[in-house]
C-alpha cells in the first residue's frame, strides 16, 4: 500500500512537471527518471552495460525465472540446469517452494561453508514471476527494469536502493565456496544505476 501511495505521488508530481513544461506525455516504460537533456547516450549505455553484467549474471538471473524452476550453473555443472530435487516456485506462486519442501528447508541465513553445501541468505526465495529475466536480451531486461509493472513497483531510485540494501540481493556478491560472484559490488551497482538514471536511463537496441 505504501509503495502504491508513493508511486501515485510520484506519478502525480511527474504529471504536474510535464504539464508545466508542456511536454507531451510518454509511455511509462520510456519515462526517464532524471533530467535527460544534454546527456551523452553512450555514457548511459556504458552504465547500463555494467548493470546488465550484474543482473544477467547467474547469481542473479538463476532465480529470476518465469518457468518456476530455479537454475543451477557453474563450471562443474556443464550447461545451466534446473535446480535438483524438483525444486519449484510453489503452487501458491509465492516463490518460497512447496509444502513439505520450502526453499528454506535447505537455504538458511548464511552460506554453508562446505563445498556444494547450500548457499544461504535471509528469506531465500525466487523473484516474483513478473520480475523474471532469465534468458532475456539486454534490451528486454533494460526495458523491464524501467517498468514498475515488471520491477516490483519501483522507481529507478528504488531499484538502486533494492540492489544496494536487500540482503538476498547482496548474496550475489558473496555466494559462498565454489561459486563465482556477480561482478563488482552492491555499492558499485547502486552507483551505476544512479548514474544510468541520471543519464536518461537509455536502453540498447536488439
Amino acid at each position, binding site marked *: 500500500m505504501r509503495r502504491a501511495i508513493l508511486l501515485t505521488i510520484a506519478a502525480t508530481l511527474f504529471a504536474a512537471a510535464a504539464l508545466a513544461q508542456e511536454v507531451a506525455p510518454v509511455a511509462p516504460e520510456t519515462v526517464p527518471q532524471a533530467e535527460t537533456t544534454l546527456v551523452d547516450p553512450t555514457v548511459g549505455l556504458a552504465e547500463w552495460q555494467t548493470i546488465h553484467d550484474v543482473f544477467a549474471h547467474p547469481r542473479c538471473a538463476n532465480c529470476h525465472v518465469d518457468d518456476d524452476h530455479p537454475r543451477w550453473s557453474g563450471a562443474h555443472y556443464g550447461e545451466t540446469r534446473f535446480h*535438483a*530435487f*524438483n*525444486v*519449484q516456485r510453489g*503452487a501458491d506462486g509465492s516463490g518460497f517452494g*512447496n*509444502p*513439505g*519442501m*520450502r526453499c*528454506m*528447508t*535447505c537455504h*538458511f*541465513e*548464511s552460506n*554453508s*561453508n*562446505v563445498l*556444494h*553445501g*547450500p548457499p544461504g541468505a535471509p528469506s531465500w526465495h525466487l523473484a516474483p514471476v513478473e520480475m523474471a529475466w532469465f534468458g532475456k536480451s539486454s534490451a528486454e531486461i533494460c526495458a523491464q527494469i524501467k517498468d514498475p509493472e515488471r520491477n516490483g513497483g519501483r522507481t529507478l531510485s528504488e531499484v538502486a536502493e533494492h540492489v544496494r540494501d536487500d540482503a538476498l540481493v547482496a548474496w550475489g556478491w558473496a555466494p559462498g565456496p565454489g561459486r563465482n560472484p556477480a561482478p563488482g559490488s552492491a555499492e558499485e551497482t547502486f552507483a551505476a544505476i544512479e548514474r544510468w538514471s541520471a543519464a536518461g536511463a537509455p536502453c540498447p537496441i536488439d
Partner: protein
Amino acid sequence: MRLTVDGKQMEIDADPEMPLLWALRDLAGILGPKFGCGIAACGACTVLIDGSPVRSCVLPVGGVEGDVVTIEGLSRDGALSAVQQAWLDEQVAQCGYCQAGQIMSATALLDEIDNPTDEDIDNAMAGNLCRCGTYPKIRAAIKRAAALKLARA
C-alpha cells in the same frame, strides 16, 4: 545454548556453527535423524522446526529458532503418528536408513495439505532420496496417512 527438542528443553554446549544434526546425535543422544550427505542433498537428516522441515546437517545449531521435532518426537503417549502408522501398514522401509527423513517431510506435507495429490507428494518429497527405491510405497503410505489423519480427526 538452550534448545527445545521433542518437547524437552535441553542445554547444549556447542560451537554455534556446529550443524544441528551433530548436536542432536553427538550431544543430545538423539539418533533418529540420520547423517547421509552432509550438504542437504539427501534428506536423511530432516527434522521439523516449528513444523517446517529443515535439513539439520547444514543448519548451524546457533541459528535454531523454534521447537525442534525429530522422528523420536512424533508419537504421543506411545501412539504412533498417522504417518508412522501408515509407514508400518504399507511396509515402506527396506534398509530404512532414509526413512526418518522421509517421514518428517511427509509429516510436514500433511500438516499443510490434508489430501495431497501425486504431484503434491512429488513436489514435497523429491529432496528425500531412497537408494532402495521405496518411492511407490512412500506415495502409498502418504495417501494412507492422509486418510488415517482424517479418520482420527
